[in-house]
C-alpha cells in the first residue's frame, strides 16, 4: 500500500514492529572475526528429520511449513546447510515425522546409495509417513554448490519447504574449486525460494491444496523475506529460519556468491554496485580447457537468472575506482588508504583528493535512507536530521542485492520486503562478522 512514508523508514518501522531496536540491530552487525563463512553444519554424518513448523515472513505473517530439521531440532527453512569436504563419504539419515512419505534427492551427486527405504518415491527412496527412516550415502566427489530436496510429492513438498543447500569444499582453503582462480575472501549463500501462502493454509487445515493455481506471494533469501534477511544468523525470534542474508566485504576483496534456485519459479538476481563474474554452474567450473585454464569461461553480468534447480557460483568485487572523486573524501594532501592505484598519479584510477564534482541538495529537499550514513564517503558519518539514518554506524556502502522482478520485493500486499538483502562494503579495517 502506498503511504507517504518512504521506503527506508518503512524498513525501520518493520524492524520496530517485530520488536527490534535499531541499536540492537547495529550491535548484531558489528562482529569480531575477519572473514565471513557460510553458516551451516559440518561433518560427514547428518541426521535430518522432516517435520512441521512455522515460519515468519517480513510482514509478520506466520506460515505453516514442512522442513528438514537437524538432530531433532526445529524444522528449518531452508533445510540445514550441509558443508562437507571434497572426497568425503557423506551419510544422511532421514527420519519422517510428517503424515506422508518423504525423501531426499541430491542433484549433482553421483551414485547415491539408498538403504532402508520404505518405498520408492518419484525421485528417491522414501521414509514412510509418521516415523519411517531412510539413509542416503554418497561420495562428495566434486567441490561446488549444490542443493538437496524432497523427491516425493515434489510439487507440494518443495512448496512446503523441503529443500536445503549442500556445499562441497575443495581441498584448498578459501577457494570454491580446486583452481586458484576461484579464490575468495568472503563467501555468502543466496538460497532463493518463494511460496504461495494459500497452499500452506490449506495443508495446515487438512484440505487438499490446489497446486494448479499456485501464485507465489512471499519470496525468500536463505528462508527469510525482507527485511528479516538483514538480521544475523540464529536470532531467537526466527527459530525456524536460522540463516541471515546480510553480506559484508571490504573494497578489493573477492566475494564468493553461492546462489541456489530452490523454488519453482525463476528469479533475476541483481547485484547493485558492480557486476559479478560467474565461475561455475551446477558445481562445474566454467573453464575453456578442463583442468587447466581455471574458471575463465564465465560471463560478467549485473543480473543472474536463477532457474529452479540451478546453482551458480560467482565472484563479486567492489573496487570503488574511476569514479572521478575520492570515495574516502580525502583532501589532496591526505595519506592514502586504499589500493595503490587510488594513490598512483599514473593510474587511470587516480582519484585521490578529488572532490565530488556536484553538491548534494540541502537536507530539506531530501529523504534519507535508514542505511545512509549522512556522508557520501566510505567509512564516514555525516550530519543527519534527528531520527534519520541510524542503521549504518560504520559508514559502510550499502548495495541492495535483490530480485529484479520487483513484484517479488513485496510481502504479500506490502512493499518493501521479499527477495532482497544488502551487501555492505565496509571501510578498510572495519571487522567483518
Amino acid at each position, binding site marked *: 500500500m502506498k503511504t507517504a512514508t*518512504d*521506503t527506508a523508514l518503512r524498513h525501520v518501522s518493520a524492524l520496530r514492529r517485530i520488536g527490534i531496536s535499531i541499536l540492537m540491530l547495529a550491535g548484531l552487525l558489528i562482529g569480531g572475526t575477519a572473514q565471513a563463512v557460510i553458516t551451516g553444519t559440518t561433518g560427514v554424518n547428518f541426521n535430518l528429520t522432516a517435520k512441521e513448523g512455522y515460519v515468519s515472513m517480513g510482514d509478520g505473517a506466520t506460515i505453516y511449513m514442512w522442513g528438514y530439521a537437524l538432530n531433532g531440532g526445529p524444522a528449518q527453512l531452508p533445510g540445514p546447510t550441509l558443508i562437507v569436504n571434497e572426497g568425503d563419504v557423506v551419510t544422511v539419515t532421514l527420519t519422517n515425522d510428517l503424515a506422508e512419505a518423504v525423501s531426499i534427492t541430491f542433484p549433482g551427486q553421483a551414485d547415491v546409495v539408498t538403504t532402508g527405504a520404505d518405498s520408492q518415491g518419484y525421485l528417491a527412496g522414501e521414509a514412510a509417513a509418521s516415523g519411517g527412516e531412510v539413509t542416503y550415502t554418497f561420495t562428495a566427489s566434486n567441490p561446488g554448490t549444490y542443493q538437496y530436496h524432497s523427491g516425493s510429492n515434489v510439487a507440494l513438498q518443495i512448496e512446503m519447504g523441503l529443500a536445503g543447500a549442500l556445499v562441497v569444499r575443495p581441498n584448498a582453503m578459501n577457494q570454491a574449486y580446486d583452481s586458484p582462480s576461484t579464490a575468495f575472501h568472503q563467501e555468502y549463500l543466496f538460497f532463493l525460494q518463494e511460496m504461495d501462502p494459500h497452499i500452506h493454509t490449506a495443508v495446515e487445515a487438512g484440505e487438499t491444496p490446489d497446486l494448479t493455481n499456485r501464485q507465489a506471494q512471499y519470496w525468500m533469501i536463505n528462508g527469510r523475506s525482507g527485511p528479516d534477511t538483514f538480521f544475523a544468523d540464529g536470532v531467537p525470534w526466527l527459530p525456524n529460519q536460522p540463516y541471515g542474508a546480510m553480506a559484508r566485504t571490504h573494497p578489493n576483496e573477492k566475494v564468493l556468491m553461492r546462489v541456489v534456485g530452490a523454488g519453482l519459479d525463476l528469479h533475476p538476481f541483481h547485484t547493485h554496485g558492480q*557486476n559479478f563474474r560467474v565461475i561455475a554452474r551446477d558445481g562445474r567450473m566454467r573453464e575453456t580447457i578442463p583442468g587447466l585454464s581455471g574458471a575463465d569461461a564465465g560471463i560478467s*553480468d549485473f543480473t543472474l537468472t536463477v532457474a529452479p534447480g540451478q546453482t551458480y557460483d560467482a565472484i563479486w568485487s567492489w573496487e570503488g575506482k*574511476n569514479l572521478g572523486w575520492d570515495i574516502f573524501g580525502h583532501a589532496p594532501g591526505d595519506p592514502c588508504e586504499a589500493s595503490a592505484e587510488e594513490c598512483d598519479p599514473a593510474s587511470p584510477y587516480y582519484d585521490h583528493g578529488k572532490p565530488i564534482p556536484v553538491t*548534494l541538495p540541502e537536507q530539506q*529537499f*531530501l529523504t534519507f535512507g535508514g542505511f*545512509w550514513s549522512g556522508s557520501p564517503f566510505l567509512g564516514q558519518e555525516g550530519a543527519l536530521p534527528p531520527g534519520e539514518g541510524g542503521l549504518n554506524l560504520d559508514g559502510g556502502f550499502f548495495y541492495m542485492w535483490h530480485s529484479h522482478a*520487483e513484484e517479488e520485493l513485496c510481502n504479500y500486499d506490502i512493499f518493501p520486503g521479499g527477495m532482497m538483502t544488502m551487501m555492505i562494503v565496509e571501510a578498510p579495517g572495519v571487522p567483518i562478522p
Partner: protein
Amino acid sequence: MKRVYGVAIKMVLASLALVFVAGGAGADVYVQCPGDTDGDGVIDDFTDPELLAHPNAVCMHITGGDGFINMADTTVTGGARGRQLYMFGFADVTGVPPLDVIDEGTTAAWYPGPLIELDEGDEFYLSLTNVGMARRPDLDDPHTVHWHGYADASPAFDGLPDVSISIHMGGTLTYYYQANEPGTYMYHCHVEATEHMQMGMLANLYVNAAQNDLPDGTNLNGFIHHTGYEYAYNDGDGSTYYDVDFPLQLSSMDPEFHDASESTQPLPFALMNDTYAMLNGRGYPETVNTAELANTENGVVSQRENALVEANVGDKVLLRISNLSITEYFTLMSPQIPMRIVGTGARELRGTGGADLSYLTNSVNLGGGEAFDAILDTADVAPGTYFIYTSNLNFLSNNTEERGGIMTEIHINP
C-alpha cells in the same frame, strides 16, 4: 554554475504548495552543469573554468512525475489511440529555463523515459527534478535515478533510497557519473520500486565504446578501423562492429494497477498481472509507427520512442536489448535473422583470458534487469520485412487485443 531559484508564484498545484509550506522552503530547481550560465542544463559558456576542469562534461535535466500514455489496443477502443493509462515517469527538460520546469513537467511524463546515450569517458551530470504527481496530490513520493549496472557505484549516486538520498517534490538532485564501461544498461527510479517501476519510471541507457574514436587506419589485430566505425565494446579485433544500433527495452504493465493508482484505490501488489507487454513503451503495431505519440488526456507527447529496426542489406545491426518488466521473463525471438550475442550486463562476452564466449542464436531469455547486446548480420538477407517478437506467445497481445504486444519489424532496404 549558476544557482537559480524557482518562485512560489509558479506553484499552481495545491499539492506542491502544501509540501513547500510543510518543508518551510521554496521550490528549488537547481541544475548543476559546468559551463551552464542560466541553469537550463545546456552548456553555453565554453570558457567556464569549471567546464575547462571537466572538459568531458555532458549535462541532462530530467523530471520525475506523473502523466498519461495510451496502449496500442485501438481495435478495442475504436479510436486513434488505445486504452489510456495513468503513469509515473521521467521526461527530458534539458534546455527548459528553471522557472518553467515545474510547469512544463507537470503531468507530462514519458514512457519510456528519455533515452540516455553517452560516450565512454563522458562526465555525466544528470539532474533530476521531482515535479510531483499532480493527479495524486495525496502523494509526496520522492524519486531517484538508479543507473542499473553502473560499475563500482557509490551509494550517493546509486539511487537506492534505503541506503542513499532521494529528492523531494520541487527539488533537484544532480547525479554525477563517469561513463567508464561501454555497453547496454538501463535506468529506473528505485523509490517504492515495485510501484514506481510498474507505473513506468524506466528507460534505455547505453554507453558507446571508446574504440569508436581510434585514429583512422588503426589496425585492431588485423581489423582495420576507419573513422565512423562503431563497436559495441572495446573488443580489440572489430568483432563487435556494427553499422546501426537500436535500443529495445522490454516492459509490461498491469492496467488494473494503473487504474487503482489513478483513482487512489489500494494497489493490488499481490494480484499484479501485467497484460500489456511492450517494446520501448509501445505494443505492436505502434512499435513500428515512427511518429511521436500524444496521449488522449492532455495531449502531451509522452511516447516518443518506437522500436522499428531499419537497415540496409549487408549492415550489421546491433540490438541493445534490456528487460525492465517487474513481473515477466521474456524470450525475444528473431526467427529469420540469427543474432550473435556479443555482450551481457554491459560487458563483452569474453572470458577472463579473452576466450570468445559469444554465440549465435535466434532467441534470448531475459528477466527483469537483464541486458543483451545482439548483432544481426544482414549480409545474406534479402531486402524485405522481418520480425522480432516474444515467443512467450501469450504476450503477443495488447491486453484483450490479439496481434500486439512485444513484436516489431526489421526493414531491410536494398
